[in-house]
């Protein structure tokens, strides 16, 4: 992972912005082109075929530009007869700073459109105001199209950076364009001279505004990419903080039991299962939107984590609907975090192919009850004290919390084990210290 990933962020931001800017630009050019088509209403009838033909080039080029950005646009081009190479070319040049057919077509179309109003062969019979308006529309159309080239995402490409020649060309674009406009807008004919001089000067100098737009675009890109990077760095540390709070602390406690001069295997077994559940919960919090906070956690989310931790996919494990709605206080949640995997694990060890879980909070004084019913081999009272399971320790822990662990055989085989303990509601006067016994 690169330490400084701002350049990549700049390119990604340019790509994200580029698509939207390109689409917006296409619609702006479409509006400008529509304005130019409207000026045909003031042209003499004999000039209309020529004017329409000239504007059709820009119109076709604009459609190619739309095809570049609209989903499925290139596929439509590819399906037209004889346009396969064009579609491939457009696909290859997408997202790169290079010269392409749509760009050249738009350039040619813009030139032909502008030459309806000024230049060497303008349409002579047209009101001056319409000529000035048409010229402004044509130059604005070209200005917008060239702007897209100046801020094209391809200039910021990380994997295919523009060559040195292209980079120099980028700096020269405004000057070249301003030079071309100045040349074209010279009063070549008496018709040209009808367009007011101030308008011609403003239009000729307008490409210099690209430098401002370019600089502003670069600043926004860099600021956006820097913010993204800073947020990611903060997120990394916050994630580590959460990982430490849940996963590492669990492992630290496990280590203490492991390093005990007389390690208790039951406890270690239980803590390992607990650690696996915690790891899966952490995954749930990171990518699954699981919510744990000062009000506690959801039994449904805990159940998901338990199943993933125990790898119990080959066993039918079901949590009933009402239990899935239960939210436990922080303390009760953590106790359930130990109880559920222990009980489910023991059911699976007993050969169960079906495990049904229930969890409820209620009674007076309030208690949490977790019930696991399985169709396994069944268990005896001695099993609760079997050192090969973690049930003995679990029962001792529940007893400390005014609870117990009971089992009853099911009529159809298997066992139902119920773990109970005094609820601790945590925050609030009716919480832990409001409950009798505390």
């Amino acid at each position, binding site marked *: 992972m690169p*330490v*400084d990933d*701002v350049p990549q962020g700049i390119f990604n931001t340019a790509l994200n912005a580029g698509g939207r800017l390109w689409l917006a630009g296409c619609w702006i050019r479409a509006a400008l082109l529509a304005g130019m088509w409207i000026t045909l209403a003031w042209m003499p009838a004999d000039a209309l075929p020529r004017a329409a033909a000239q504007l059709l080039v820009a119109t076709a080029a604009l459609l190619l530009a739309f095809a570049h950005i609209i989903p499925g646009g290139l596929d439509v081009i590819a399906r037209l007869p004889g346009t396969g190479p064009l579609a491939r070319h457009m696909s290859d040049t997408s997202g790169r700073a290079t010269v392409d057919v749509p760009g050249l077509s738009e350039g040619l179309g813009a030139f032909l459109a502008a030459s309806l109003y000024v230049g060497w062969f303008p349409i002579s019979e047209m009101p001056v105001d319409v000529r000035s308006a048409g010229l402004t529309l044509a130059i604005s159309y070209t200005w917008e199209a060239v702007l897209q080239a100046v801020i094209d995402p391809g200039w910021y490409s990380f994997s295919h950076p523009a060559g040195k020649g292209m980079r120099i060309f980028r700096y020269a674009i405004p000057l070249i364009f301003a030079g071309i406009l100045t040349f074209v807008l010279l009063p070549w004919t008496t018709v040209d001279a009808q367009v007011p001089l101030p308008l011609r000067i403003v239009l000729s100098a307008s490409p210099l505004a690209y430098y401002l737009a370019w600089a502003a675009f670069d600043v926004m890109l860099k*600021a956006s990419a*820097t913010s993204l*990077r*800073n947020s990611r*760095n*903060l997120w990394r*540390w916050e994630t580590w*903080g*959460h990982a*430490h*709070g*849940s996963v*590492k*602390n*669990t492992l*630290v*406690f496990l*280590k*203490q039991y492991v*390093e*005990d001069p007389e390690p208790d295997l039951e406890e270690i077994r239980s*803590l390992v299962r607990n650690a696996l559940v915690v790891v899966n919960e952490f995954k749930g*919090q990171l990518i699954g939107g699981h919510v*744990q*906070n*000062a009000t506690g956690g959801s039994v449904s989310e805990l159940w998901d984590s338990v199943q993933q931790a125990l790898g119990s996919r080959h066993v039918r494990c079901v949590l009933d609907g009402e239990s899935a709605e239960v939210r436990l*206080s*922080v*303390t009760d949640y*953590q*106790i359930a975090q*130990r109880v559920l995997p222990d009980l489910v694990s023991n059911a699976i060890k007993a050969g169960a192919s079906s495990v049904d879980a229930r969890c409820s909070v209620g009674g007076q004084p309030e208690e949490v009850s977790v019930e696991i019913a399985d169709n396994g081999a069944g268990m005896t009272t001695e099993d609760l004290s079997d050192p090969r399971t973690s049930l003995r320790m679990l029962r001792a*822990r529940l007893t*400390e919390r005014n609870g117990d662990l009971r089992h009853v055989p099911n009529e159809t085989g298997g066992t139902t084990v119920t773990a109970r303990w005094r609820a601790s509601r*945590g*925050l*609030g*006067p009716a*919480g*832990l*210290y*409001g409950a009798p016994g*505390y």
Partner: protein
Amino acid sequence: MNIIVVDDHVAAEEIVRGALASEGHSVRGIRTPDELEHIGDLEKYALAFVDLRFHTWSENSGLLALRLLDEAGVPALIYSADEEDNRLLFLLAAFQFYEPLALVPKSASSADIRAIICTIGSGARPDTAAARRYKPPRPGVPLLNRLIVRLGDLPLWQAIAEHTDRFAIAEAVQMSRSKVDDFLAEHFDIVGEIEETFGLRTPPQPLYGAPQGRTNAARSYAHRMPPLHSFAVVHRDFFQDPEVEKLIEQRDNPPTRRRR
């Protein structure tokens, strides 16, 4: 004695109980510092074990627990993973403002815990090497006082954790860029001193690439910003903790005592 454990892990409470139950102590646990506010008879506890961070379960830190315990006159022990970099400032604040009896690392064995409680029970104050590192020098200026010289430094530290550009920092705290530069210059050495003293493992490289800049002023700024930003990111929770703001406010404006 009655002991309360303020730790987001039930396992921490169980470890303390396991270590002390045989000695006749009664151990109860709560998961968040917020819960202390709802305990009516907090005074009945003779001792508290307090964790400093409660990532998942609470927005508050152990500093809130220490304040509430202090107000109730309950002596406290810090029970925290002190090897983590982002605990450092919390530990410095805890030992500067609340003078806890000792620091018990999360890795402490049952025997270690029993020994500390035994010392406290005998009326002595445990002098653990772990705690000694965080106690403010006497005489001398506490490190935290040099890091947060005035209350107004906290928003700056918060902004430096969020941004890497002094324009953005200045905008975020409504301050001139030159004042931001002054702040960076003023705090550069103390951050280095803290990191060196406690052997902090700041990210091996600045979080946002190599310093840049041409002029002397820009180079100074560019060289100071990366390590200070990294430091602020690591300790962001501390700089944002409302308890820290209260502590600094009280430090700078101690309540005046009425003359009788």
